[in-house]
């Protein structure tokens, strides 16, 4: 049972990413008038991450897109400590230690610590010319390096790796993508969608090597020159981007004795194992209504919707709240290929096509136990928007024949089951 915030309570938020900033906004929008402090270790005015991997080609420099207009924290009467890391959390004393030597007491604490890139434990990973992409600083380094590079090797055909590959290709670089699995984005996409995207990238000239892991990186004078695949094949490279996923920033919570399970574990009301500490966004593992189990998601939708939910809950308290249960959705933009996902597909789902991949516009409908559970749309925004409506309703009465017929108006159908 979440007690509503009293006006004298001090709320502290750790992290100034999408979730942390939305948290400030939502607390104020719901009418909380008490003190708020937000602490983030990145020195920059909070910015949006998604453009960083999509807008590497075209502009002469990276101009960050702020998460909120300048002056937001002042207007929200929020103390923002930027460039400051929280180094210790003491849940008994309800106190934080900061990297600048300061201390902060809280009544309620929100962990919005996000995730960081997963390290690749291979020889040569620390050579010059080897990059990752998570932060604005990373993007600036990568952007500069791209302007001087000729041969680009990307390790990992996930969303970010392929978005960067598409940008580098557009810049006229020779691009090779090494992917250990037999298809790209295998964790998130059905094989129909993933094979389509693979073919689309290959057609634009990207050398997509599937079933090829990375064995090591070789260099000269401290600078990378070659990526060696698990097959033994050598790929010349003057720039390597490692895009093999992220790990959640859970150390602070873990050291404080909070329950961890892949991410910081929370209940349906986003409360951790300590009743005064909550968690939102990429760092959080929550009971997901749509997968039926504990899930950690990495998306703007998840970060903002969780913060919105928690902001309202903390201000208003809850009597018969069903918990956080917003529909997950996600997008990626890879050169000319626009991927939009509504819901979450699972390995056993039955995939049914809606539309013809030959036209470059289609959706993959995923059925679980006979009912529509997720929709992946390729260059088909209409299907995606309708799917977001359909999937929050009861889809069990809808047949796959009806749903997969491109003549069926999905938007109308969504209205009929609501």
């Amino acid at each position, binding site marked *: 049972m979440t007690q509503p915030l009293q006006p004298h309570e001090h709320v502290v938020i750790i992290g100034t990413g999408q979730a942390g900033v939305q948290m400030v906004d939502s607390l104020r929008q719901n009418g909380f008038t008490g003190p708020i402090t937000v602490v983030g270790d990145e020195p920059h005015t909070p910015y*949006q991450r*998604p*453009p960083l991997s*999509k807008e590497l080609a075209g502009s002469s420099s990276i*101009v960050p*897109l*702020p998460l*909120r*207009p*300048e*002056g937001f924290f002042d207007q929200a009467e929020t103390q923002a400590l930027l460039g400051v890391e929280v180094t210790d959390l003491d849940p008994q004393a309800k106190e934080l230690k900061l990297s600048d030597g300061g201390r902060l007491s809280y009544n309620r604490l929100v962990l919005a610590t996000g995730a960081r890139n997963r390290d690749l434990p291979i020889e040569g990973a620390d050579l010059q010319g080897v990059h990752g992409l998570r932060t604005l600083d990373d993007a600036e380094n990568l952007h500069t390096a791209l302007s001087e590079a000729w041969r680009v090797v990307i390790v990992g055909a996930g969303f970010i790796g392929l978005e960067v590959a598409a940008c580098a290709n557009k810049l006229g670089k020779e691009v090779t993508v090494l992917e250990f699995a037999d298809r790209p984005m295998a964790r998130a996409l059905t094989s129909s969608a993933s094979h389509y995207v693979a073919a689309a990238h290959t057609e634009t000239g990207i050398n997509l090597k599937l079933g090829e892991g990375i064995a090591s990186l070789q260099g000269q004078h401290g600078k990378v020159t070659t990526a060696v695949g698990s097959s033994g094949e050598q790929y010349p490279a003057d720039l390597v981007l490692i895009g093999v996923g992220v790990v959640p920033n859970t150390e602070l919570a873990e050291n404080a004795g909070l329950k961890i399970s892949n991410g910081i574990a929370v209940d349906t009301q986003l409360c951790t194992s300590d009743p005064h500490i909550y968690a939102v966004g990429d760092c959080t593992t929550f009971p997901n209504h749509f997968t039926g189990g504990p899930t950690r998601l990495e998306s*703007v939708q998840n970060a*903002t919707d969780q913060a*919105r939910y928690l902001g309202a809950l903390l201000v208003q308290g809850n009597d018969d709240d069903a918990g956080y249960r917003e529909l997950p959705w996600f*997008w990626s*933009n890879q050169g000319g290929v*626009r991927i*939009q996902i509504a819901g979450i597909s699972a390995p056993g789902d039955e995939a049914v096509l809606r539309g013809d991949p030959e036209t470059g516009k289609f959706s993959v409908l995923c059925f679980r136990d006979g009912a529509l559970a997720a929709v992946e749309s390729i260059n088909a*925004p*209409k299907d995606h*928007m309708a799917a977001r409506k359909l999937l929050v309703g009861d889809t069990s009465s809808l047949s796959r024949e009806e749903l997969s017929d491109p003549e069926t108006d999905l938007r109308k159908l969504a209205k009929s089951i609501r």
Partner: protein
Amino acid sequence: MPRITYHQPQGSQQTIELDEPAPLMQTALRNGVPGIVGECGGQAMCATCHVYVREDYLDQLPEKSEDEEEMLEEVASPFDERRSRLGCQITIGEDLEEIEVDVPESQV
């Protein structure tokens, strides 16, 4: 110099001059103009960069893409068939040198 004037629902206004072509949404966030959220970073995915274009500029606007048409159906403030547009899909400084828009009451 290309410029954008944003009118707030309460009547105040801000005019931003552009050094290089830029979309309405991005220009607002980078210059401290309130009321435009831009949650998807300009990908026509979130409908939180809704603006109403003022009459004088309507016939100079680029056509709406299918993405934009779809997202406009989702805006939080009343949809205006003629004047409603997504701020991330209209770039000023290329074909269009100047524009005035009204920022809606709410975006979410």
